[in-house]
């Protein structure tokens, strides 16, 4: 479903502090599977995730989404793809303070301009599925960490994307909440979503829900160890 060919990403190109975050990544990510990138800080996981999710472009190399080469598309088209095909769950949740849980959930759908009532109902349903109906009118800064993450998940699902991208989703959660997140992940997989995440939390990468673990170090993919689940 997602094919990466010889992906390189350099920051501050041509300057003294030029830094190569990704050094020739080749990868195939199948649809309807849960894939985790594992690796230490600075290994290039987040950079790779942002390229897969159309948040940034590679310096060189090709990204295919389905049959389409999306690596050279202008920003407008990338935004469109990002909006339709990807839902994001960020490590810091990245909710907008001052807005209610429901308003935050609806935000990614605003640029599509759908019917308000339909959008409203969809947001309600998602919040209900994630046991947040009673908190829908609360400003997000008044929610607990777990509730905030569930709002972020609902927001990622509002445009019904095929692929969910989660960056270190359990980094700010205790074990109980991390397990709850994994249960949600299982449900997402159950309804046919492709999930791509980064993590170095054993609760995530060692979970049976994760089908494929890809290890990264220094901007490269590390071959799987014999006996590992990757």
């Amino acid at each position: 479903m997602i094919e990466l060919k010889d992906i390189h990403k350099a920051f501050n190109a041509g300057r003294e502090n030029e830094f190569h975050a990704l050094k020739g990544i080749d990868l195939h990510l199948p649809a309807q599977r849960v894939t985790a990138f594992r690796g230490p800080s600075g290994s290039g996981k987040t950079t790779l995730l942002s390229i897969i999710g159309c948040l940034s472009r590679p310096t060189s190399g090709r990204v295919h989404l389905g049959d389409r080469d999306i690596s050279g598309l202008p920003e407008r088209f990338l935004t469109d793809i990002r909006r339709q095909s990807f839902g994001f769950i960020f490590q810091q949740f990245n909710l907008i303070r001052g807005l209610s849980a429901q308003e935050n959930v609806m935000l990614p759908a605003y640029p599509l301009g759908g019917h308000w009532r339909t959008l409203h109902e969809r947001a309600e349903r998602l919040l209900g599925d994630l046991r947040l109906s009673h908190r829908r009118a609360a400003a997000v800064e008044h929610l607990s960490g777990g509730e905030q993450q569930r709002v972020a998940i609902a927001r990622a699902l509002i445009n019904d994307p095929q692929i969910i991208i989660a960056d270190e989703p359990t980094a700010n959660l205790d074990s109980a909440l991390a397990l709850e997140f994994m249960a949600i992940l299982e449900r997402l997989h159950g309804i046919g979503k492709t999930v791509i995440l980064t993590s170095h939390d054993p609760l995530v990468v060692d979970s049976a829900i994760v089908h494929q673990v890809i290890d990264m170090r220094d901007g490269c993919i590390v071959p799987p160890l014999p006996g590992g689940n990757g």
Partner: protein
Amino acid sequence: MNAWIEKQRYLIDFTLSSLARRKAKNLGLLLVYTLIVFLLASVMLFTHALRQAAAQVLAGAPEIVLQRMVAGRHDLIPPGYLERIGRIRGVQQKEGRLWGYYYDPVVKANYTFMVPNHQDIAAGTLFVGAGMARARGLAIGNLISFRSYSGQLFSFTIAGILPSDSELVSADLVLLSEADFRAFFAIAAGHFTDIALSVANPLEVRNIASKLAQQFPDARPILRAEILRTYESVFNWREGIVLALASLAILAFAILAWEKASGLSADEKREIGILKAIGWETGDVLKMKFWEGALISQAAFLIGYLTAYLHVFRFSSSLFAPVLKGWAVLYPRFELSPVIDGFQVATLFFFTVFPYAAATLVPIWRAAITDPDAVMRG
């Protein structure tokens, strides 16, 4: 089309909630902005209305006034001048006028004594302006005495108070009969203060003025157009003074607006990043922020202009009328007729709304074109 309308609705909804989320900051900005517009609009509306009033008053004035000069000072017109003018072609009507100033030590004010040309006033009676009537507490039938410059005391009965709708020009006016005027100021028969000339063809006015200057080398012709221009200059100058003072306030506002604009808070930058990451286009972010700036600046313009209108035309510009009207002991009480000049409104709008919108958009644009992946890195 429906999706487009819904999208604009969502953008405006979000803009309003965004404004509400930064209530204190935006209300403060709106207040300062409104104050600036109010100040500028008040000065502009007031001086424009004054200019209009002056033009209306002068519309009935003679095209040319001839004054005799002695040693560079205004002197009386001697007998015979009026008859000589009759021979200049194009002069439709000519009349000698009698008027002068009198200082009243009781109220420390100057009055304008005048003999009306088209109104008979009985000897020993006066018609006085409303301003003077207020200052001296006069009513019809009252007796009033003035000591003339020769030291002789003259007593008059008040026959009438001039209507207050003409107060802008008649506040200090005293109308009396020709005989009383000549006796009071000791001006012999045949002498006049000046001569008023009516000219039928406006294109002829300058020609006639130059003929008068040739024929009466000791006199100066004053054109109505010149008086109008002088009024314009006086009001423009006063407007300029107030605007120069206001420019300090404007500068302070410009700094405030620039700081708000260029110093997007970390919170706002983060918000723009989030919106982009979850699928908003740069254009959507810009539109939303544009609406935010437009709502503030247009609300400020509207409120500021309306309050300025009320201030000038309902409350007689009480805040800075003394500066704009000039000093007087007998302040006329007058209501200016509401006049709005479209060009002036457009100028004010352009110089208050446009720079703000531009100043706020540039840094937002810079924030909005950054790669959304910055959000991933916290």
